[in-house]
């Protein structure tokens, strides 16, 4: 039975799935977009770098959650435990801290590139808006994550940072209470920030990232200067 050489296994797997779900053509339309020549430059990679850092934050963050204890009495000790007792704990936590800083920097660099190449203009205004929300989410990740080590820097950083909200006329005190969960930064603030950092912000980030990517695929990237 000497016929054509057998197709590669991944092609056959694709055929098998396509036969059942009929997804090849819509998926290929979405995934197979050649990058235009004018966009093959390093400064068109900044958004992708930001997303890569987001993935690193997700993986290292999940790993940290296995040992971190979000209570006023245990938080700092659990950080010490991660740094001193857990194998590679220092590495995972340092990666999380450094990627957080880099993610904010890359996010802003990406926005600058979009601004300078004028890529935010019609018809891409809404993707600029989605990106702006992603910047705010990144900063919110940074602000809530800053409190979690529960050391002096975290406590006073969050105290001063949240006080800015309290400066709003009339509603400031109420908003400050909502943010902190107590008049001062206490264990109630810690669990609040922990919940936001671990659950609320990731869900929002996935929604806006999804929108960001669907829109860029639908519209294609902007033309040359």
């Amino acid at each position: 039975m000497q016929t054509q050489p057998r197709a590669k296994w991944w092609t056959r797997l694709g055929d098998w799935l396509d036969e059942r779900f009929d997804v090849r053509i819509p998926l290929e339309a979405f995934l197979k977009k050649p990058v235009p020549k004018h966009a093959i430059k390093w400064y068109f990679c900044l958004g992708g770098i930001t997303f890569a850092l987001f993935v690193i934050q997700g993986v290292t963050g999940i790993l940290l959650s296995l040992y971190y204890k979000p209570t006023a009495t245990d938080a700092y000790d659990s950080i010490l435990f991660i740094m001193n007792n857990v194998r590679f704990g220092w590495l995972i936590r340092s990666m999380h801290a450094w990627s957080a800083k880099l993610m904010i920097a890359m996010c802003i660099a990406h926005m600058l590139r979009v601004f300078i190449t004028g890529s935010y203009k019609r018809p891409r205004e809404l993707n600029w808006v989605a990106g702006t929300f992603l910047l705010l989410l990144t900063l919110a990740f940074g602000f809530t994550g800053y409190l979690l080590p529960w050391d002096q820097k975290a406590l006073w950083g969050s105290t001063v940072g949240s006080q800015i909200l309290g400066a709003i006329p009339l509603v400031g005190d109420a908003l400050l209470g909502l943010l902190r969960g107590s008049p001062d930064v206490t264990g109630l603030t810690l669990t609040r920030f922990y919940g936001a950092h671990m659950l609320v912000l990731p869900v929002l980030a996935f929604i806006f990232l999804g929108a960001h990517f669907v829109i860029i695929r639908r519209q294609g990237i902007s033309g040359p200067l």
Partner: protein
Amino acid sequence: MGESVNRVQDEGSGQSLNRRRFLKYILLGFSAAATAAGVATPVVGYLWPPKQAVGAGGGRVAVAAAADLPVGKGAVYSVNNKPVLVVHTQDGYHALSATCTHLGCIVFWAEQKGVIACPCHAAFFTVNGNVISGPAPAPLPVYQVQVEGDQIYVQGGQG
């Protein structure tokens, strides 16, 4: 000679394993394996049950041989990852947290003066941990210490 020419022409046809193909697979395989190992090692190591501090949870820790600490001497040991100062005076053994209650420097036993001193801001404590002078706002926490046989044990419950 003829054979090697054929091999070069075979490149990419997926049939034979010539030298170029072989080297490509080796290099790609090595790169992939090294990258996978570089990611897997920290992650698996991280997930592996971590080493607990010796005697954690209130157990006691053997810090030194009694012979290492004659009367008049004091030394700092690690008890459950916390520094503990053990002092041997004529009254016996004293163990205290070695973390200064002022700003967290590691205190030492000033043998000449017979007091515990902090090198950072000149806080002084008695051998029982009480503040003599200096900026320390609170006494040093005291640990239980026992000597059995030739070993000095410190109770780690406070750490």
